[in-house]
């Protein structure tokens, strides 16, 4: 049992070590959580597809420090995101804001779901109707022929 616990602890150890960023860590756990949550919402402007939480770039490090300074100054989370957005534009936000130029981005999946769903409903209805309908004389004849072949 003790060995098992030790093994589990070792498994978790690298995760625990990787978690804190190079910057100072707040003693206040709630403040630390806010800082970390903000890091994941801000894009590193040097490395494109990483948040500043994941990036080792020096500019990302300085951006983390600025986030902490704003937090210490008493800014709200929204104010800090707006602060970065005012400097680097929408690009810096990991989650694109819903506005005129992102309408297609946000709306397209719903639009496609609506159109695709509509097409499926139309298709299924049409199939079902086809099954209910009585056979035409030609179809009757064809069916009878097939039945005869099978009977032989």
């Amino acid at each position, binding site marked *: 049992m003790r060995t098992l616990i030790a093994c589990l602890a070792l498994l978790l150890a690298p995760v625990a070590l990787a978690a804190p960023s190079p910057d100072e860590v707040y003693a206040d756990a709630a403040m630390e959580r806010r800082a970390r949550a903000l890091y994941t919402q801000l894009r590193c*402007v*040097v490395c*494109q597809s990483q948040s500043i939480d994941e990036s080792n770039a*020096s*500019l990302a490090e*300085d*951006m983390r*420090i*600025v986030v902490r300074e704003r937090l210490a100054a008493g800014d709200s989370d929204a104010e800090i995101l707006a602060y970065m957005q*005012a*400097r*680097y*534009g929408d*690009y810096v936000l990991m989650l694109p804001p819903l506005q005129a130029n992102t309408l297609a981005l946000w709306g397209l999946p719903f639009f496609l779901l609506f159109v695709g769903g509509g097409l499926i409903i139309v298709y299924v209805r049409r199939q079902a109707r086809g099954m209910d309908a009585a056979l035409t004389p030609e179809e009757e004849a064809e069916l009878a022929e097939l039945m005869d072949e099978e009977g032989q």
Partner: protein
Amino acid sequence: MGRWLAFTPLLVFAVMAIYFGMGLREDPGAIPSQLIDEPLPAFDLPPVAGAEAGLSNSDLAGHVSLVNVFGSWCPPCAIEHPMLMQIARSQIVPIYGVDWRDTPEAGAAWLERHGNPYTAVGLDPESHLAIDLGITGAPESFLVDASGRVRYRHVGIITQQDWDETLLPLIRELEAS
């Protein structure tokens, strides 16, 4: 109707191919500046080692200026440097340097070694001004008009062509207005 419907996927594919094809031609690293026609953020930077004054907004007041962000750690800045020296010699526009993420000693040593094209230099060791300017890398330069508004941002090295075709005409235009 049925035959027309069969071509829909092809049509959708064609539209997407054109759209993404256009996207491929764009540079994903180019982040548009938020500062164009906005006032330059307020700053008051300390000097490099051995210099008396640093750099603040008041240095730029009343004339067109070129603000250049560089660092002694930045190889492309060394490539750009002769162009800045040439601009400084021409006395067309004063250049103000922002020594980014540097120590006072390293910044001073760099200017000693390569020559100093800057009317004034300020140190920005913790990226405060760099983040206010929306900097993504060095070198990066801004044309600031007499009223302190940013009018143009140049990302990367200023080449002779950039100077002749973009910066110089813009400076002339800003000085005339």
